[in-house]
């Protein structure tokens, strides 16, 4: 396979096409524009369509329609645009439709600016729309991984009939890195017998999202809760480094996660007993490696994220008081530097071994 130097936004677009995505609906917004532009160029070449919607509200419902008709389809957006999709996200969850949504996040709230940020974490992982629901959330930390996760996002969406969010930031979207596209196999996935494409002599298909009968409504909620529990049990994904003997465990994802990886390696070279958990699925959140680390040597956790402190809640919930959890936050669209993380790691590693 040939290595290509492409932007993250282009890599996820091409990877989506390789995964069989035929329809893209979207509305331009920086720093995600290369996605819609790539799709406009490429999809017609593979017999697909890019439809430029008049807004993100419209995009997400076009997506709902195409997914309701059983097609692999996606949209891409950022910040404001993702907020406008929240009603639609709630509908997609209730309709149990497999779709992929890429959020190339920028600094918020409001227009904020275009610098990278992880400030949409709650929106990704807690369902920014109304009602009880979750989405798969996949968070790459580089261009190759972004490409790899696209196929997975479509597969998970199809398998569990749930929307999958690919959580990026401006740097990941705009950055060029070498990438090799990998083939994916969808043979194991269930056929979409529920899709509304015309009865064609068969039974009627209704893709709807209301349940007036309270008994059925409760049953449906219970089933959805059970499905979420099952996914939490089986679909956690993460990268880990040197957890076995780590006193301090850094938890960090995406762009911050790649800096954290370098910082942990650097700190290890300096003899500090530090490990890394880099969540790849933000939902389901990788509680398993945290639990494992706690049964091994972990005496403290350091969360590094590019926001006011959002993922830190998930880490605290997983740790549940069994060790201190520290937050290293970069705000205002800034990214952590390796030096700053190494310095903080050194301080905290000292602290946790003293207190232990």
């Amino acid at each position, binding site marked *: 396979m040939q290595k290509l*130097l492409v932007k993250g936004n282009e890599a996820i677009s091409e990877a989506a096409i390789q995964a069989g995505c035929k329809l893209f609906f979207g509305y331009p917004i920086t720093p995600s524009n290369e996605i819609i532009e790539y799709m406009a160029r490429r999809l017609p070449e593979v017999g697909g369509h890019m439809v430029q919607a008049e807004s993100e509200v419209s995009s997400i419902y076009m997506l709902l329609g195409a997914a309701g008709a059983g097609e692999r389809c996606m949209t891409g957006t950022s910040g404001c645009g993702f907020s406008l999709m929240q009603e639609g996200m709630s509908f997609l969850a209730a309709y149990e439709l497999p779709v992929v949504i890429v959020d190339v996040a920028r600094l918020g709230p409001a227009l904020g600016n*275009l610098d990278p940020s992880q400030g949409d974490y709650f929106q990704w992982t807690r369902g920014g729309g109304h009602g009880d629901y979750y989405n798969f959330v996949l968070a790459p930390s580089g261009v190759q991984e972004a490409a790899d996760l696209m196929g997975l996002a479509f597969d998970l969406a199809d398998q569990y009939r749930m929307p999958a969010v690919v959580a990026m930031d401006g*740097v990941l979207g*705009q950055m*060029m890195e070498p990438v090799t596209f990998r083939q994916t196999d969808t043979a194991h996935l269930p056929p979409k017998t529920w899709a509304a494409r015309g009865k064609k002599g068969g039974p009627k298909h209704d893709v709807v999202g209301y349940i007036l009968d309270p008994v059925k409504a409760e049953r449906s909620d219970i089933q959805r809760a059970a499905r979420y529990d099952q996914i939490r049990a089986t679909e956690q994904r993460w990268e880990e480094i040197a957890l076995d003997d780590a006193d301090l465990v850094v938890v960090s994802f995406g762009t911050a996660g790649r800096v954290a990886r*370098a*910082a942990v390696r650097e700190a290890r070279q300096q003899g500090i007993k530090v490990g890394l958990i880099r969540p790849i699925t933000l939902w389901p959140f990788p509680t398993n490696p945290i639990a494992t680390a706690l049964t091994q040597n972990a005496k403290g956790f350091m969360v590094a994220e590019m926001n006011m402190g959002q993922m830190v809640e998930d880490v605290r919930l997983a740790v549940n008081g069994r060790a201190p959890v520290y937050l290293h936050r970069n705000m205002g669209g800034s*990214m952590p530097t390796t030096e700053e993380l190494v310095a903080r790691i050194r301080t905290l590693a000292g602290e946790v071994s003293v207190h232990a």
Partner: protein
Amino acid sequence: MMERMRLAGFGGQGIMFLGKVLAHAGMLGNKHVTWIPSYGPEMRGGTANCSVIISDVEIGEPVASRPDILVAMNEVSLRKFQPVVRPGGIIFVNSSLISGVPMRDDVTVVTVPVNDLARSAGVPGAINMVMLGAMLPYLKGVDRHLIEEAVRENVPASRQHMLDGNLAAVAVGVDAAHVPA
């Protein structure tokens, strides 16, 4: 080996292309590379910059926020980015447009009159390639062979006629660089 570079200048000076060629050459040499443009409204109003990292090891921090190498194609860029260059780093200065700016003394300064050189060489539009040539002797992550291949792969089919001019400009830059700064 890790070379973190920041390339900055006016829009239209070919800064982005220069960066892409560097990153591409790095990839051809099987290095880890990142290239990141400045994007968004900064693009209006005439200045542009990008970040390139070429490295033997996996790249953590993707942006060269504290670069080892700065290419300043105009005065604004020099003033803006000079302070963040790492001690011991190199600053390439487009001396056709920049003069009289006080320079740090803990870095190597390479002045290249790229506009003048490009004009004399008959490729006035290829100032970025002249600069690229001038950088070559100082770079550890890429060599001239890979750079030329990268230039070839990055000139779009529709502009193949400009390829020779570009390569000539690189050569001009390489020669100029040997003149001590």
